[in-house]
Each structure stands twice: as structure tokens, then as C-alpha cells.
């Protein structure tokens, strides 16, 4: 998301939500009785369960339940949201649990996304920060006023700590659970006082993950794990090319497979429904489908790239222009230029896409690792002719996503609904994609070509910068199209390029958005920055070398107007020992150190990579030192965890990641063709966090963009060779 969109929406949305804060404790029938003298007083546990209102529920057994409007897909959101709320509530962290919210955009919209509920763009903490603080503080205030009334003391004399409410003078004390019923009768405060940050007891400290236990004993529930009475499992034969359709099919052999109960045609292909997963697979294997491929897309990825390179010779739509770039280049003493290629990339979450749908008499139930609640709710509602609110979504843990489960077209969710519709199933149906279905379904990080030029004047100053990008738009056809496409330029295609932080007086960034390539594309962890950080930061390094300048020094010189960039860069360089000699390599290994800095989603990350390049050209990344500024560090250990993982995710793409097409067919299907990083390729990672009092931004994505350019720059330092494509080729680096 662009900075502007975030700022504008966040302010407006926050005020609206702030004004209408509806947090409170519901009051069931028996609450009064339970709250009576001797029932819920000191040391007596109540028996009343309180229903949740927006984000918080406190049970008589002292369990504090935080309702998360955001998906937990590994990024630590459940823990982060709970940390914020529990701190303002002064809850005992060990009594806090987290529950996924239902799909209900009225209560649970992403405050940066207007009237839509969903998780993405590293917004979960940023949009929820004030909201969760308010929710916790309001809960605390109600507990305190309930205690004040009960004990006939002044509210200002009451202290709350670790889930215990105390009045020192009188010796009264009560747990949250003991006060819950009485607190429910208190009016919801219209204004609450938030803590002074110096009083935070969880925020900025180590609050342990809430999902560690369930994810280490096999009990965590993913969509893949849903078992419901009489549930059927469905697999779909999908077309071999984008744009192909079913011409005809013969279900005979599939129906003969034991366990198969139905075969139906749906818009996405032919679905086989069976009593269990293996039978569904065997049924699908036995299916005979003829495809209509006349109108299908038949280009290879090499041909797409060749077309893009041709396009790059002509001017595109201007995304950003400052100064007089043409003049600067005409008068340049030295011009440096380079082209960069980026492939399609699959998200390849460990849990392939899947979804469970059950149609009932007056509505529909969906079980999903739900990332785009409102979009999916509307899409499913349209299939069945229901109102969106009749689609009840159960948000389960997602086994990774990296953007994939927030599909702008609701692809796999719609597929599950279409199967239920076509088969008229009255029982729940679980759509299962095998790895190959997942990898070949499209919705890739788009293939891109970049062309860059830099102009250095006679005084040795970097005076001109031209950056041209060619690639498909992600935002076209998405709910964010209106906000993100300005004058024909998809701001997401050029994010990280059009907002280049360096003080270069003459700059132009332009963009070609080919519209005749129907390969579905989607946001992939760090979106535009997944390619722009690489081209800008490796090209900058090349320019620094051509100018005879130290890469860190030149960056700092041109980052004077960007103190947050400069601060992380300085910190990473210092912690990595920038400028100090590296230990020499053994066995002919060439060693080098490289740096990159990049802002994405309002968070700033610098990384210094140390590499060893083997004689055969293989790269071993030994160590990556990271410095991060994501505003207030809500949960420092989770920030470290996310950045460690982001380094691995970015390296995976740089070392291996590539989806290719041959005559329109996707060549890769599983992890043999599309390898992802293994533990023996994982470097040592150090993460340093810049202390900050700025409102928090995200950390799910911003660790990804700098790693590939930092490594490529380290490789250049080691070998003198510039890598200009992802993934790298060892042949380019052989001694």
C-alpha cells in the first residue's frame, strides 16, 4: 500500500472507529445475581460466561480472550495484537488467548482498507495499534470502576497489574474473572487514557508466541485439517494453460474408483468428489478431459521477457519525474546503464490452497485460512445468491500465505463454492489442491524487466537517474485498483523505484504495463519491492563503484533527507564491521561483503551480507546483519523472527526461485522444479532494532527486499561480477 493511502485512510477510519467505540462486556441474564455480594467478590469465582463484544472477552475463570480480526499465517499477528491489548488491560500474559474473528467488516475492517476486512500489506499492527490499545484500556477502565463501586473506594486509588485489581489501603483485591460480571454493568467509557509508553509491561518486552504450543504438538487447526461429519473431499482437473476451458470429459473411469461419489463440471475445470483425499486423487487421475485450448495463452516466459525488453526501448507512462533528466544525461561525463530480469515467482506456501464450504438452508459456512474476508464473502455470496452476511467464515491458521490467500479474484475459494453448487452437495466439501495444482494455478509475482541509467557529471556527482520498468499490473481488477492506479500507473509496480530515497536532482521513473499477458499475477511478500529493491540497490552499488566511492558512504551522503534510512544503514554497517577486512576464503572461495537499504510498508531495513563464492560459481551466504526500524517494537522477538525468516524467503528467490512457461504451460510442479531454501543454505542472521517512539509499521514483509541486493553486492565485491537477474546463475560466477 502506498504511504498516502495508509495515512489518509488511517486517520479518517480511526476517528470514525474511535467515536463509535463499542467495546464492552455483554450482560447475560444471570450476571446480576452472580455479581451480588458473596457471589463474585474477593476469592469467589463467578459462573457467568460473557459473550464477546468487539475485541475482548473475559471469562470468570480469568481467561482473557483477544479477538483477532487478522489472519495468523506465521507473521505473529495473533501474538502482536494480544500484546498491545493485554498491555493496556494490564492482563496476566499467561491467561491471554487469541481467537480468530468472524468475517464482519462492520466491526473488523482493516482501518487502512476502508470498509473491507483483510490482512496484507504489513498493516495488521499499524492499523490496529490505536484500536487495540483503546480496546484494552477501555476494558481496564471498566474493571477499575466496577472494583471502585464494589469496594466503595476511589477509582484513582486502584491499581491493576498482571490480571489482578488491588486497592492497597483497604487490602481489597480481585482477579479479572471475579470482576467481569460487575464490569459488564459499567458504562462503556467514551474516552480512555492510554498508558505512557514508559509504563508498558508487554510492549517492547518479550511476550511469548501464543501459537507455539498448538504448533508443536500437531493440534493447530489448518484448513487442511478440517474434518466434519459426512464431509467430501474434492480435487479439480484444471486446464493445462491459462485461458483453456473444458471441451468434454468422460467421468466413467473416475466414477469407478472406490470412494468417488460424483464428478461435476465447474467453470474452473472438472471436479471429482470422494469420501477421502486419496480416493479423490485416484479419481482425478482416472478422469479423461479434453481441453479447448484455441483461445488459451501459448507464449513462453522467454518470449514474454523478449517482448518486455523490446518495450523497454520505448518510453513508458511517467511515474515520477524531477529536474531535467534529459539535460543531465546529455551533459554527463559518464553514463552507466544496466538491465535486470525478474521471473514469475510462486508463493509456494507449505499448505497448498484449500477451502471447506457447506451450504445450509439459510446460509453458507466457509472454513479457510482467510486473508481477504470481505472479498471472499462477497464472491461466495454471489455463487449461491446469498447476502454477504449469510456467508459465515471461520478463519483458521494458514500454513503460510505470503499474499497467496488474499487472492483478488477469490480463486480457490470460488472454486470450492462452485463445486458445492454444481454437485448440489448438502454435506461439507473440502477442496484440496495438491502441490502441483498450487504451483501451476498462476497468481504469481509478475515477471519484470527493468532498465536503469545513471549520469555522473564532470565533478563526479551523481546527477541523473532513469529507471524504466516493464511488467504486468497486480492491482488491475483488484479491490484496490482505484486507490493504487494513478493516471494509468500502477503505483505498486513502481513502489521502491518511484520513491527512490537518494538525493539525485534529475530523475525519471516510467512504466510499461503490458495488457496482453493473461498470466494471473498477485502480490507476493513485499510486492513491488521484491524486484525494485534489487535493481535500485545493486545499480546504486555499481554506480558507487564507477564513481570510486564506498557504497555505504555514498548512500549516507545522498540520504541526508531520509534519516530513518540513514539510521538503519549506519547501524547495520557498524554491527557488521563494515570496512574491516573479512577472513579470507578457503579452497579458492572468494569472499565479499555487500549492503542494501530499503523502505517498504513504512518500515526501514538495512542488511549487510557476507558471502563466499565457490570456484564453480555457487554462492554460500555466511552471515546477514540486519537493522530494522518499524516504529515502536511491539514484540521485539517476533520482529527478529520475521526478519530472520524474510532473509531466508528473499534468499530463496535469489538463489532458486523461477516459474517458467513453455508454450503457455507452467514447467514447474513441485519442490524439485521449484526449490525453496534449505537449512544448509541458511546464513547466520543478526537482527538489530532501532528504538523508536513512532507508531508501529509492519514487519511481515520489509525484511525481504534488501537481502537479494545485499548478497549480489557482496558477490560483486568478491568477484567483480554484477548479477543482473534473479535467480542468479552459478555459471556467471565460475572462476
Amino acid at each position, binding site marked *: 500500500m502506498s504511504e498516502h493511502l495508509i495515512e489518509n485512510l488511517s486517520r479518517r477510519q480511526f476517528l470514525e472507529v474511535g467515536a463509535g467505540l463499542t467495546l464492552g462486556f455483554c450482560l447475560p441474564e444471570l450476571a446480576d445475581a452472580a455479581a451480588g455480594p458473596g457471589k463474585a467478590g474477593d476469592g469467589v469465582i463467578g459462573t457467568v460466561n460473557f459473550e464477546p463484544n468487539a475485541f475482548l472477552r473475559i471469562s470468570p475463570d480469568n481467561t482473557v480472550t483477544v479477538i483477532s480480526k487478522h489472519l495468523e499465517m506465521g507473521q505473529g499477528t495473533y501474538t502482536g495484537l494480544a500484546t498491545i491489548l493485554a498491555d493496556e488491560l494490564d492482563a496476566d500474559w499467561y491467561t491471554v488467548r487469541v481467537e480468530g474473528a468472524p468475517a464482519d467488516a462492520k466491526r473488523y475492517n482493516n482501518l487502512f482498507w476502508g470498509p473491507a476486512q483483510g490482512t496484507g500489506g504489513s498493516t495488521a499492527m499499524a492499523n490496529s495499534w490505536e484500536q487495540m490499545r483503546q480496546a484494552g484500556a477501555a476494558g481496564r477502565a471498566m474493571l477499575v470502576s466496577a472494583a471502585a463501586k464494589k469496594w466503595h473506594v476511589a477509582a484513582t486509588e486502584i491499581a491493576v497489574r498482571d490480571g489482578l485489581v488491588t486497592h492497597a489501603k483497604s487490602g481489597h483485591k480481585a482477579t479479572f474473572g471475579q470482576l467481569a460480571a460487575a464490569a459488564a454493568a459499567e458504562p462503556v467509557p467514551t474516552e480512555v487514557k492510554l498508558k505512557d509508553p514508559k509504563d508498558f509491561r508487554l510492549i517492547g518486552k518479550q511476550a511469548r508466541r501464543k501459537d507455539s504450543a498448538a504448533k508443536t504438538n500437531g493440534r493447530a*487447526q489448518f484448513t487442511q485439517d478440517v474434518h466434519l461429519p459426512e464431509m467430501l473431499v474434492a480435487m479439480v482437473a484444471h486446464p493445462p494453460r491459462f485461458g483453456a476451458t473444458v471441451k468434454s470429459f468422460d467421468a466413467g473411469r473416475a466414477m469407478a474408483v472406490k470412494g468417488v461419489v460424483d464428478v461435476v463440471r465447474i467453470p474452473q475445470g472438472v471436479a471429482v468428489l470422494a469420501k477421502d483425499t*486419496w480416493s479423490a486423487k485416484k479419481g482425478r487421475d482416472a478422469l479423461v478431459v479434453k481441453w479447448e485450448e484455441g483461445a488459451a495463452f501459448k507464449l513462453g516466459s522467454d518470449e514474454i521477457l523478449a517482448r518486455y525488453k523490446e518495450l523497454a526501448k520505448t518510453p513508458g507512462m511517467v511515474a515520477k519525474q524531477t529536474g531535467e533528466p534529459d539535460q543531465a544525461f546529455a551533459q554527463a561525463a559518464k553514463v552507466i546503464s544496466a538491465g535486470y530480469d525478474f521471473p514469475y515467482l510462486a508463493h509456494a506456501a*507449505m499448505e497448498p490452497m484449500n477451502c471447506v464450504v457447506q451450504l445450509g438452508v439459510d446460509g453458507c459456512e466457509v472454513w479457510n485460512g482467510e486473508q481477504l474476508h470481505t472479498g471472499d464473502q462477497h464472491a461466495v455470496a454471489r455463487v449461491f445468491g446469498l447476502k454477504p452476511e449469510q456467508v459465515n467464515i471461520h478463519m483458521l491458521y494458514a500454513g503460510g500465505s505470503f499474499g497467496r490467500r488474499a487472492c483478488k479474484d477469490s480463486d480457490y475459494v470460488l472454486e470450492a463454492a462452485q463445486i458445492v453448487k454444481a454437485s448440489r452437495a448438502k454435506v461439507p466439501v473440502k477442496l484440496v489442491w495438491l502441490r502441483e495444482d498450487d504451483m501451476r494455478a498462476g497468481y504469481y509475482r509478475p515477471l519484470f524487466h527493468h532498465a536503469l541509467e545513471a549520469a555522473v557529471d564532470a565533478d563526479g556527482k551523481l546527477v541523473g537517474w532513469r529507471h524504466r520498468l516493464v511488467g504486468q499490473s497486480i492491482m488491475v481488477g483488484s479491490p484496490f485498483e482505484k486507490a493504487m492506479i494513478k493516471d494509468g500507473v500502477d503505483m505498486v509496480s513502481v513502489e521502491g523505484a518511484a520513491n527512490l530515497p537518494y538525493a539525485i536532482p534529475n530523475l525519471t521513473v516510467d512504466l510499461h504495463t503490458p495488457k496482453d499477458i493473461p498470466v494471473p499475477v498477485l502480490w507476493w511478500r513485499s510486492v513491488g519491492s521484491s524486484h525494485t529493491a534489487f535493481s535500485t540497490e545493486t545499480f546504486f552499488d555499481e554506480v558507487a563503484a564507477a564513481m570510486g566511492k564506498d557504497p555505504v558512504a555514498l548512500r549516507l551522503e545522498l540520504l541526508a533527507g531520509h534519516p530513518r534510512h540513514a539510521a538503519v544503514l549506519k547501524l547495520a554497517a557498524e554491527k557488521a564491521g563494515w570496512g574491516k577486512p573479512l577472513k579470507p576464503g578457503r579452497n579458492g572461495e572468494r569472499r565479499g561483503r555487500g549492503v542494501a537499504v530499503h523502505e517498504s510498508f513504512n518500515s526501514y531495513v538495512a542488511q549487510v551480507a557476507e558471502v563466499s563464492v565457490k570456484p564453480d560459481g555457487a554462492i554460500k551466504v555466511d552471515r546477514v546483519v540486519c537493522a530494522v526500524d518499524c516504529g515502536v517494537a511491539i514484540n521485539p522477538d517476533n520482529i527478529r523472527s520475521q526478519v530472520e525468516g524474510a532473509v*531466508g*524467503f528473499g534468499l530463496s528467490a535469489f538463489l532458486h526461485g523461477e516459474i517458467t512457461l513453455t508454450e503457455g504451460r507452467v514447467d514447474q510442479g513441485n519442490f524439485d522444479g521449484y526449490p525453496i*531454501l534449505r537449512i544448509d543454505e*541458511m546464513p547466520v542472521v543478526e537482527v538489530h532494532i532501532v528504538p523508536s517512539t513512532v507508531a508501529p509499521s509492519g514487519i511481515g514483509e520489509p525484511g525481504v527486499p534488501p537481502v537479494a541486493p545485499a548478497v549480489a553486492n557482496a558477490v560483486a565485491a568478491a568477484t567483480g561480477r554484477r548479477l543482473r537477474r534473479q535467480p542468479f546463475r552459478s555459471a556467471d560466477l565460475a572462476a
Partner: protein
Amino acid sequence: MIELNVNGKQHKVDVEPDTPLLWALRDALQLTGTKYGCGEGLCGACTVFVDGVPQRSCTVPVSAVGGRRITTIEAVDADRVGMAVQEAWRKLDVVQCGYCQSGQIMNAVALLSHNRKPSDADIDTAMSGNLCRCATYVRVRAAIHEAARALGERHV
């Protein structure tokens, strides 16, 4: 009907003999901690023990394991090494999405069962067949060292 001994209990499962152990565990016995990731033995998410040896359950047909002892993540804490690994994983908050972690833990238990003090290189070799798309590898390494340390302490 095929007889399976899973986590110390005898079960009769009504599946075809060519059904991979993975789907028999998940669909017939509803032991869903063991995960599907690739179906080709490439990612390690489906790792279980067969007679104490780690196996990729997605490529082992049930007909091949009748009468053998199968252990899944749900019972890994019955063993002291398993419990130490699980505790180390929690202490260091290794997990992110968590989907591959059953397989990671099973394989780590197998490593520590025959090598009580693995080096980083031992860990990398033993664990390189277990993919983690969240790349929790830094903490996988640290947690295995932590479990080894804890097991060593308990020995004394």
C-alpha cells in the same frame, strides 16, 4: 481392513492398500498433525517414525507398514527426547506458520536420538530434507542445540 499400530494403539482402517500412510493417518484416524506438503517425499512435512526410523509418510503405502510401530507428532512427547525437542521449540518460539513444524520436530528427534551433541553441520545435514517456507531455520538450529543441552543436563 488394514491393521495399523499408531502411537501404541491398534487401529483397523478401511482404506485401499495403496493409500499412503499420510492419508490413512489424516483421513481415517484423524491424526492431522502430520502434514501434506508435496506428496513426493520432497519436503518432509509428513515425517513420522516407523519402528523408530523417520519416514516420509506420503510415499509409504499402508500395506507396507501393517504390524509396524508408527509414531506421529501427537505422541512425540511420550519420549524424553521428543519432550525436550518440543520444549526447546516452545522456549525459542521457533514456529511461524507452523505447517512444517511437525515434520521438523520429528526429524530433530531422530537426529538427537542418535547424536546427543550435534554440530551446526550435523544439524544442516540431518535437517536439509525438511523445508520451511517461513525459513525458521535459524531457530531450528538453535532449538536443536537447546534440546541437546537440556538432555545433557538431565543426564548428569
